[in-house]
């Protein structure tokens, strides 16, 4: 295997592995569900892309022809990750999970739950119906 190829693969792998670890690290570390959502949605998606690219290069080299079917996985993940995040956010909202204390605009959570227009901040203090 040519060295440059090996280096590229290794770099891609390291990037991928790093971001994957980072995504999971964030998942474990971040303080509330809403912040945690960010971490796998972005970092892990990028990380897996790195690994996929590495795999693509290596397999192409091993098989002797351009093997780019790994793109398909990337495509799938890029399409689905935001939807999964969206569903999870909806669920978290539905479950009325308290966000981190210092989260701004928490008054928006109520209209988000009911999928209505955003309300003024003062509405948040109004007694619940």
């Amino acid at each position, binding site marked *: 295997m040519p060295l440059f190829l090996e280096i590229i693969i290794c770099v891609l792998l390291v990037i991928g592995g790093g971001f994957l670890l980072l995504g999971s690290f964030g998942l474990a570390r971040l303080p509330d569900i809403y912040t945690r959502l960010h971490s796998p949605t972005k970092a892990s998606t990028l990380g897996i892309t790195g690994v996929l690219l590495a795999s693509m290069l290596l397999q192409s080299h091993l098989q002797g022809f351009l093997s780019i079917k790994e793109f398909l996985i990337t495509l799938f993940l890029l*399409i*689905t990750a935001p*939807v999964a995040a*969206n*569903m999870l956010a*909806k669920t978290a909202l*539905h*479950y009325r999970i308290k966000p981190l204390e210092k989260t701004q605009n928490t008054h928006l959570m109520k209209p988000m*739950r009911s*999928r209505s227009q955003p309300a003024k901040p003062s509405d948040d203090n109004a007694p619940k119906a």
Partner: protein
Amino acid sequence: MNALIWLPFLPLLGSLVPLFAARFSRTTCAFMTAILPAITLLLVLSHAGEIFNGSLFQASIPWIPSMGLELAFRLDGLALLFSILILGIGLLVILYARYYLSATDSIGKFYAYLILFMFAMLGVVLSDNLIQIWFFWELTSISSFLLISFWGHKTEARKGARMALTVTGAGGLALLAGLLILGDTVGSYSLQIVLYSGDLIKSSASYPVIVVLILLGAFTKSAQFPFHFWLPNAMAAPTPVSAYLHSATMVKAGIFLMARFYPALANTDLWFLIVSLTGLATFLVGAYIALFQHDLKGLLANSTISHLGLITLLLGMGTDLAAVAAIFHIINHAIFKASLFMAAGIIDHESGSRDMRQLNGLWKYMPYTATLAMVASASMAGVPLLNGFLSKEMFFTETLHQASLGSLSWFIPVLATLGGVLAVAYSTRFIHDVFFNGEPINLPKTPHEPPRYMRVPVEILVALCLIVGIFPSMVVGDLLFAAASATLNGLVPVYSLAIWHGFTFPLLMSVIALIGGLLVYKNRSHLFKFQSQFPASDPKLVFEGIVQSITAKANRFISLTENGSLQRYIFFTLVLAVIMTASSLMKLNTTAGQRAEIPLDALSITCAVLLCLAALATVVCHRSRMMALITLSVVGLIVSLAFAKFSAPDLALTQLSVEVVTIILLILALFFLPQKTPKESSPRRVVRDLGLASFAGGIVGTICYALMTRPLDTISTFFTANSKTGGGGTNIVNVILVDFRGFDTLGEITVLGIAALGIYKLIARMRLYMPSTDDHGRPWSKDKHPILLSVISQSLLPLALLVSAYIFLRGHNMPGGGFIAGLITSVAIIQQYVAHGVEWIKTRIKLDYQVMIGMGIGISTLSGLGSWAFGQPFLKTWFDYFYLPVIGKFELASAMIFDLGVFLTVVGATMLILANLGQLTTSERLTQQEQE
């Protein structure tokens, strides 16, 4: 084969006659019924002459040789005697019953049962095979049951019949055991051989067992003490039945049996002890009880018991003369007791009562019947010039010659005389208490003489009492001799049938009996008073009580063990499995074998830790169901990774796709189930289950390890070698699935299809608990179909289908195949259901999933059937390589069609399950929401 074979079967045919003849008048019916028995009787009599000359008729045809059962009959003196009794008295009973039964009774049914019994009884006495004897023996029990319960609407008839059947049935089983051991000892079930193997039998170790078992059969049938109680209760039967079965024939079957096996079993101390003591006890007990009966038939029944005891006693005495006497008494008792029962029946019939406290002074109303009854009664009492006297004299004579009780042998004649006294007493009571003794009290009817022909059978029998009594040797001499000869294997002693033997000791005993009996009767009030001190116990109640207490105990036991707890049932099953495997595993000394192990790596350890933690978490969190589902998913994921790691990509793919479908299914179901499991197991229970579970897990792990570390030589090399050349594919696993073991796969998709059909059945008309809030009481979100999900799902569908096609097509050569492809397609469609809802899909997809299943299984089957056209067995595959100009070389294989069937079945089944389950709520939920 000769006419002998037909003897018993003529009555069998005859039992059908009354069923057809019942449509005619009762007289015609009786007449037609009598024809075949009459012919049989003539046939029997036609053999009599030769038998008197010492001939023996035998006939047999093989039946079940491996069991030792053949259809074998013998007609010797004993059989002749009994046949004549059975057929002769049977004919008289037919005539008698014609008048006895009322117009509301079904006479056809009665006659049918009666003749059926006649058949069975003839079968017993004519049998020449041990098993066949038992065969007919049990038939007599059955037909007797039917006859006793002829008036089945009466409680006492049902109970009496049940009791008789139970007691005689139990005896019958003992008899069977005895006969089987006997046959085994002799080495043949042929009676002929058995009768001549007496010495062999008596010297064998199993002799005592044989004797006891066979005698149990005989004693129960012949109502010997302590099994006598069923007979009085069988009196619930119509009187003709009592006259026939319970005096003349069936109860004599036990006696017959003893006489039949006399050469083979008798003449040992054991035989003497059991038979004579039982007989003596029965003789006295029966006579004593008879005296206190108020029921006419009860008196006769108990007297029958007593007389049967007498005969038994004679057979147990061990002398040849006693045996002769026994046989003579069989004849005499049959004659006088049948006539007495008939007389009692007439009295009952014409006065409406059988209670001797009501029946008084009937002489005035029915003098003719009274005369007949008195003669028969006198015979029963042993009055000279009547047949009863003769055999009783012989009996007394024999009692005097007994020495086997040693210095206590004088007990026997004394007790015999005592029995005689009691017999005279109850016979006197039968006459005096009924025909004299003042006026009738509260009779339902005014008594009168019966119809002319109803008396005829009694007349005949009473006449016989007299004729035999006066001219014994002329009338029954030959018959008695022949019968005795058969009983004694030809060694008949010298005996005399004269009425007068001079002033002998037996005569003195007779005189004592007569005078004593009259005296006892005269002073009966004292005896009755004495007897009334004892609490009356009805054997029927005792018997039913025992049966019911057994039933109750059984009930308690069953509800204790089968307590309806599935957990217990599973527990037992697993405990058994654990015990069995553990017992064997303990002999495994070294767990690890010689095969080299794969070294551990960090990745595997991590995955294993994940797997174990997730599995444990599933257990720990199982009460929070959603959580359990999530951890279960983790387990499933790691399992698929394991398959991938250990070189099974097909398995990994399958496990992954099945996993998702299972999770979706569980989620669907969870909606209708409680979200949380209550804590209900006691700590003890948890510990117990944990113990069992870990023990079982340990065993499985140990076996698994032991297996993996040992080398194995398998048939798989064949598959590797033939996969490409024989199956046309490089993916060996897939070739095994669609070719080498395609039959398994066909079965597997059938299972899937059936499961879908079954689930469809389960879902149909299901009443649902639909929670309106989740387990925290939150109302459900109003957003049915999140916009992002809908849009993205739509875009993913074509891609998913393409992937599915890809997986399907490559399956034969690369990991994949119809099953995985089917699951991917299903998941893709389900995703549309999740994203868009049922209504949306309904208008867009019009697939009949049931048809799809049918098509799938059908296509797979047909692809297998195609090979028949080429003379090949089912599922023989075909493949070939083709070349087309532009496309190039490609392969076509019948396995592809088979796999297509798999694909269709999987999609059809999965969708039939999930879509139907999903649809379940839709309509109801819509209305629910409108109300909100």
